[in-house]
């Protein structure tokens, strides 16, 4: 089964085993199978580590994830059937998966590729993304501010909150129009900062398939082929529907280097750290088999805090990355969702820890989302700059997993107790001069102080 045999995959939505509702499938298949694979493959977390150094655990995690995916399949909400894949089909997809893509064009052309643990050759791919809504009146400026960042290899632009004074609403004309405006703003912003050919993952404002399709236009909107990326979600948990399959069909026919957006919930259907790890790893296999996606964006997050920077979730991303890097060609990114907001020291510590816990494990940074992803205008390029600089520093100075574990433990002490506190910080308009699109001096000073503190702990920045 090649990844391009999408019609054979779509047929599974009509032919698979029937369960009248998702809860029945969860109780009869998902939950017992998850318990089984955790036990059989001996997946255990000690509750303290942040950066995994056990290769055998990474390999067992991969085997558990594959076993789980083949045993459970994917529940289709529309047809109430489970789309199941045989081991042979999964192996064929994994074997034929491309380990790298050339994306973007001109001086912003880049290799987007899988990396190995403690990789000395392939630098991380720096995808900047606030993953937040921005007010319509500053949307284009915010895109420009992000595009100015020197380390940026790709951008997933902020979402637009409103269209003509009305809140962009899923499956309505306001969503379609907001998605088009988003795409137009992004193209304009790219030209205005001199990066017209940078690869963008577009368009986050479009939740529905019809809005995604409407935003595709080679002149003013989302471009075809390797010039732009798109995303299609795996619904929680191991679930899809026809809207998602429609998106994957459109992306493939449009030729984009598109990804699979997947976030297992810690404390959710998969249970604790071990189950969430197995599920998150399985999502990377699922995206490749079900949607034919070229890469995956991993955001396993905490049920209560909606963040990815707790001890358990950093460890999870670390094992996940190693499991994928050691056992597959699958390209993946690691998504940062911080608890704290712009202008707070806590946010910088969370960014540093996520970058350090993932880069040495073969990861690629995607961020930085702030404030538990809750508020409009509450993200800036400054914390993203810091996040990606730490990731680059980790690569350039060849930090080992052992060294990163030591650093992450020290940094965790600085923010772990603060996680339950709502430390949401400032809006972009307060942190940035929105005319010049540069950080205000007070916040630039704070950024420099945080870099100095990290240097004192042993992180060497390349510049």
């Amino acid at each position: 089964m090649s990844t391009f045999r999408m019609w054979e995959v779509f047929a599974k939505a009509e032919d698979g085993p029937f369960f009248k509702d998702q809860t029945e499938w969860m109780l009869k298949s998902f939950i017992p199978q998850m318990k089984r694979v955790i036990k059989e493959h001996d997946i255990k977390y000690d509750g303290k580590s942040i950066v995994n150094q056990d290769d055998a655990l990474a390999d067992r995690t991969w085997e558990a994830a594959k076993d789980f995916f083949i045993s459970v399949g994917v529940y289709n909400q529309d047809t109430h059937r489970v789309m199941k894949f045989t081991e042979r089909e999964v192996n064929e997809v994994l074997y034929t998966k491309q380990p790298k893509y050339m994306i973007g064009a001109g001086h912003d052309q880049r290799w987007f590729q899988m990396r190995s643990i403690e990789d000395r050759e392939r630098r991380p791919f720096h995808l900047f993304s606030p993953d937040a809504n921005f007010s319509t009146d500053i949307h284009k400026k915010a895109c420009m501010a992000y595009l100015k960042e020197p380390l940026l290899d790709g951008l997933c632009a902020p979402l637009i909150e409103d269209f003509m004074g009305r809140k962009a609403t899923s499956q309505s004309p306001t969503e379609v129009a907001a998605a088009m405006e988003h795409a137009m703003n992004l193209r304009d912003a790219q030209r205005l900062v001199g990066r017209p050919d940078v690869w963008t993952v577009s368009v986050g404002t479009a939740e529905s398939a019809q809005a995604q399709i409407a935003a595709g236009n080679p002149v003013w909107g989302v471009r075809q082929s390797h010039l732009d990326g798109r995303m299609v979600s795996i619904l929680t948990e191991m679930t899809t529907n026809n809207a998602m399959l429609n998106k994957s069909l459109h992306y493939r026919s449009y030729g984009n280097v598109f990804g699979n957006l997947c976030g297992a919930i810690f404390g959710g259907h998969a249970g604790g750290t071990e189950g969430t790890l197995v599920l998150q790893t399985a999502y990377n296999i699922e995206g490749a088999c079900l949607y034919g996606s070229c890469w995956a964006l991993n955001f396993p997050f905490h049920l209560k805090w909606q963040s990815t920077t707790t001890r358990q979730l950093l460890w999870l991303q670390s094992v996940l990355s190693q499991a994928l890097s050691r056992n597959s060609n699958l390209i993946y990114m690691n998504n940062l969702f911080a608890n704290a907001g712009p202008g707070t020291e806590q946010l910088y510590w969370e960014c540093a820890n996520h970058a350090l816990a993932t880069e040495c494990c073969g990861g690629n940074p995607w961020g930085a989302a702030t404030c538990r992803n809750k508020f409009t205008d509450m993200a800036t390029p400054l914390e993203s700059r810091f996040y990606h600089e730490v990731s680059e520093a980790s690569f350039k100075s060849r930090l080992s997993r052992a060294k990163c574990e030591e650093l992450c433990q020290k940094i965790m002490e600085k923010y772990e107790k603060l996680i339950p506190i709502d430390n949401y910080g400032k809006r972009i308009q307060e942190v940035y001069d929105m005319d010049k699109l540069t950080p205000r001096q007070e916040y630039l000073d704070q950024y420099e102080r945080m870099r100095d503190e990290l240097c004192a702990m042993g992180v060497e920045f390349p510049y």
Partner: protein
Amino acid sequence: MSIAEVRQYMVDGDGEAAVALTNKLLSEGTQAQDIMNGLTEEMGILGEKFENFEVFLPDLMIAGDAFMQIMSVLKEHLVTAADGPAKTVVLGTVKGDYHDIGKNIVGIVLQASGFNVIDLGADVDPVAYLETARKEKADVVGLSALMTTTMPGQEEFIKLVKDAGEKGKYLVCVGGAPTSVEWAERIGADVWSFDAFECAAKLKKLLG
């Protein structure tokens, strides 16, 4: 053979064994109300453990499923409680939104807290909420949204309720990761809560 064993079967998710034992206890004269009190207490303990991340959603789900199986046996033996029949909550994820984990957790916690929960699932049309609320004489309508672009579905329902002249007939409760108390106030919702447990506590307080 005791209520404690029924509680344990429920926690283990063994609905079949729990139902068999419940039938046996009832035939031997154990009061249905005593069994139900024991089960409610056990679900409360499980809920607290879930809140502290000592147990997880699958544990709640399998226990909740067994709880409902036992309740179907107990129902005919129970006399109406002094504070009246259980309050009814109509629950769903709003139109265009297919994410249902938050809504499912709220449903289980509310059931465990003694509410009668009618779960409409995900991608629910506002009219379906309205019609179900009327038919079931709902005390609460709960609307979940996980996407910023689907949050307006909560506001749309509140407008519909006002237009239908039914505002105040039941509480409208909104929630979901991107929502906030400010959002709930802005759209005129009656209740917003941080999580499922706060939701159950607030509803109990408001409904008496």
